[in-house]
């Protein structure tokens, strides 16, 4: 196997014996293969003496996180000595990455590059609706750098944007690098050095609308992270706000740097039918702010959500909102050119497609740069090319326009549009009105002026969400099409 790798130009960068029967091999592909296959700088090969088990792949996934995401997080090559077909066994093991069986053909092992060329197109690398990790996050280098700087500075940042815009992926890119253990679920024999301790909590998990319940959830997240990292300090599993205070201050006193992430933070402020904030929430936020001031630079807070209005609410629980003049918003909009094109090109190379400029133009026009929709366009493109059974490296140019019909009818696309319309209708009526007026025609300038102009509330709401280009007065085609085709008739639209 090693000789075949060498012959193919792969360089072994790390070889670890994970267990008595399992080896993890990191290899660096030659530049032309990395480039033409859209691979990360390194690829992991899991070698098992005997039959590969699900736990071997789990170890491989943890190794990806520990590598600082240098390894390709979406691909693992497997070699084993099992008697039944390896590829079939790999496909039965749960997990979302692509597994490629590297098996001998007769007496010889084929070149890895040849196996990759054969197998990579069989996996729809575009089809990803959950947050992505490592090298899968594309076109967000600027935002990642900005956020990393703010987190390292110990700021409070609110990352806002539409659902599926990549907010969680962006924050994960920063926290995975700062603290690989925060991204792992199960401990293994390895430990990882972390410059910080990330406590990641999803506010959807909060069951009781009480601040102690939130604090207990944070303690639980902290405890899990400590276990996975094999840390000696173990926080209490309960104790509410006071338990959290004791645990965090003990860590800070010992010189740890902490980053608290609250995903789906809107739920903290909409805890019940009345959409009221969790009672006592201001006490927790005050505590966080106090730590940030006392241990300056050592405590960061990242809030992830759709709606920044909670940051600027003057009061919370009848006292001044602690987030006021502390937390600053970071709007995450669509991917802009040329980064959107690069995403399609790179993932296209991964699946054996040569995505051309005209295709990118069509995708841009229809997805508006929304990452999930952009990927969905790529997925539709891949399906179309596979339908024609085209060779590796085929150009997408003849097919770009043809897949528009398929793309706009994809379930994922209408779901995103439905959510956008719902959000605007419920929270941003001026933006909703501008959307309807723009879609249903009329002079663009007049429509914009009537809504309060480019700086009016309607245009501002749509612009923040990356849905409106004030220069051209345009709205992404997918959204216009949804409104024209699916939005139930309403009095305003009818008039």
């Amino acid at each position, binding site marked *: 196997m090693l000789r075949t790798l060498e012959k193919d130009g792969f360089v072994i960068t790390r070889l670890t014996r994970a267990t008595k029967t399992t080896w993890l091999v990191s290899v660096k592909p030659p530049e032309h293969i990395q480039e033409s296959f859209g691979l990360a700088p390194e690829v992991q090969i899991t070698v098992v003496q005997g039959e590969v088990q699900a736990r071997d792949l789990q170890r491989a996934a943890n190794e990806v996180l520990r590598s600082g995401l240098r390894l390709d997080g979406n691909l693992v090559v497997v070699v084993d000595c099992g008697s039944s077909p390896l590829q079939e066994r790999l496909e039965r093991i749960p997990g979302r990455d692509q597994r490629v069986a590297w098996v001998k053909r007769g007496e010889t092992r084929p070149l890895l590059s040849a196996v990759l060329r054969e197998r990579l197109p069989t996996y729809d690398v575009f089809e990803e609706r*959950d947050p992505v990790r490592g090298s899968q996050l594309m076109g967000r280098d600027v935002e990642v750098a900005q956020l990393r700087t703010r987190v390292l500075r110990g700021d409070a940042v609110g990352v806002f944007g539409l659902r599926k815009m990549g907010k969680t992926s962006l924050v994960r890119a920063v926290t995975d690098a700062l603290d690989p253990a925060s991204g792992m679920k199960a401990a293994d024999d390895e430990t990882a050095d972390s410059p910080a301790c990330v406590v990641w909590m999803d506010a959807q998990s909060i069951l009781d609308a009480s601040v102690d319940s939130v604090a207990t959830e944070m303690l639980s997240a902290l405890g899990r992270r400590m276990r996975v990292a094999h840390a000696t300090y173990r926080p209490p599993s309960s104790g509410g706000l006071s338990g959290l205070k004791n645990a965090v201050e003990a860590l800070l006193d010992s010189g740890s740097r902490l980053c608290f992430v609250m995903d789906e933070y809107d739920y903290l402020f909409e805890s019940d039918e009345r959409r009221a904030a969790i009672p006592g929430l201001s006490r927790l936020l005050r505590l966080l702010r106090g730590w940030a001031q006392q241990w300056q630079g050592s405590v960061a807070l990242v809030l992830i959500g759709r709606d920044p209005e909670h940051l600027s609410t003057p009061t919370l629980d009848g006292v001044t909102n602690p987030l006021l003049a502390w937390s600053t918003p970071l709007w995450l909009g669509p991917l802009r050119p040329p980064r959107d094109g690069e995403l399609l090109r790179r993932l296209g190379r991964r699946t054996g497609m040569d995505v051309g400029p005209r295709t990118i133009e069509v995708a841009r026009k229809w997805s508006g740069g929304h990452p999930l929709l952009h990927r969905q366009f790529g997925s539709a493109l891949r399906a179309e090319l596979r339908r024609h059974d085209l060779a590796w490296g085929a150009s997408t140019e003849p097919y770009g326009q043809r897949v528009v019909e398929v793309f*706009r009818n994809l379930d994922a696309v209408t779901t995103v549009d439905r959510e956008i319309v719902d959000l605007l209708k419920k929270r941003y009526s001026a933006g909703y009105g501008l959307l309807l007026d723009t879609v249903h025609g009329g002079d663009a300038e007049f429509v914009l002026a009537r809504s309060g102009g480019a700086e009016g509330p309607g245009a501002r709401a749509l612009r923040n969400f990356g849905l409106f280009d004030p220069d051209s007065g345009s709205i992404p085609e997918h959204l216009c099409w949804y409104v024209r085709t699916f939005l139930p008739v309403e009095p305003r639209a009818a008039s």
Partner: protein
Amino acid sequence: MKSNPYAWQGDQPRRVVTPKSLSSVVDHVRRGTAVKIVGGRGMGKSVLLRQVADRFVDPATRVAFLPGPAGTPTVAGAVTDVAAKWGITDLRAPRLEELLERVIQGDVTSAVVLIDEADQYISLGAEHGLFARQWFNKLEATRKDWGGAFGVAFAGGLGLLYLEHELGSGIVSRAESCVLEPFELDEVRRLAAPFEEDGRPLSERCLETLIALSGGNPALVTFGLERLWPSSAPDAVLLERAFGEFTERHTPFVRAVHRSISDQGRLDAPHRVLEAVRAGTGLMPLAGLRAACAPRDDRVAIDHRQALELLVAAGLVRVAGLMSADPVAVSPIASILNFAVTPSAAADPLHRLMDDVCLVLANLHRFGRDFHGKGGLLEEQVFSSMIAVGLRLLGWVEVEREPIQVAGFTDVKVRVTQPSVQGHVVIEVKLWRSQQHNGAVQRQIDDYRLQETIHGVAITLGNRNAQGWVEDYEDWCLRGLSFERKEAPVDLVGRWHVRGVAANGPVLTDHLLVRIPKRD
């Protein structure tokens, strides 16, 4: 004869077929993608979920199948329920994360939770569906956190729209959707394989009748097969009786089907869309569908794609092509669930029967596509069966279907037992083929008349262009007779009254001409 392999009631039928969607659902669950299975009553949600569970035989995955909400409608109760399925009864605290940490270790690398009857979670627990919101949010947060190591699939109908729109559940809107569709003939044939194995294969006509009456709803198909099994010579006539009585004998099932598409005052758009589709021509303009979904007194607003998906998943409509096309090709599926159920209110019993016959024929016209097989329109006997069942569903309990050896064909006989009128009405069904085939229809009815025959009905069905058909009918079938052209009833091509004289005096025959369009 072997014991009956079919049991239509209950979530674990003894005999099932593998749906096309199974491998796709399994693949998504393996990848850690949430999957929502949308289906109405009897569409096979539970069966599919159980088949998904059976696919995870690898000991590296633990699977929990939840047939319904836990006894205690709290997240802690739900977690305890899942833990119990995995044999864990000593959880320190009933928290999902702790449970997964306990389960996913060593050789176990993933866990899957399969939730049936998601709709039932809506009405449980604290007010306003708080439990449903919390439980499904918890599942989504955990799924996101655990990546591919934790998979969730849940099945439901209308309740999923509440979860998504009213309770703002992220997992429902983000989940990969699997919309269940009715069985097609091949699937029904596979399900009927035990008859063949028992040396009593079902005829093609019997299978076609079964699919036309059941609409391919898996529970109804199984119901039909269960009723056929005890017969040494199973045939379509047995199905007519069973399905003709179905709505009366199994009202809760029918109500559940309706509840799966409508909840007046909260979410009624799917029902309004269904009414529009039933009244339509098979091609619905987008504007009509969007108007049917326009918010009225509904608390939950949905678009026509969601409404149509729900109707497809309930086995009530079929959409050909895209739901964004204008017009959308959508038609009601031939099924007892789609038959008109409101009988005529006319005082005269004969008048009432004729109104109801026309109503049933209008249904057949709208179900058109379902009556076209590979070789054109299905056999006349299938239509006779549909008419017989349609009339039974409208309350005509004494509908007989028997071979009339004298005339050499099978037809429908309806007994009218009112104080003012006593006797039976003979209905003759023919496909429009040729002058030789159709020309003698009046004579055939006259030959069949008995002393107690009080009326005759000749029904002709075809798929030809309506233009000129009325004239051709008069030329082929009514030449030389004393007839009067009447106004065509709704959705029918033509109607005539033919007057004649029998041994016991003057007699009247209704002739009805119906188009069964293919609409492809």
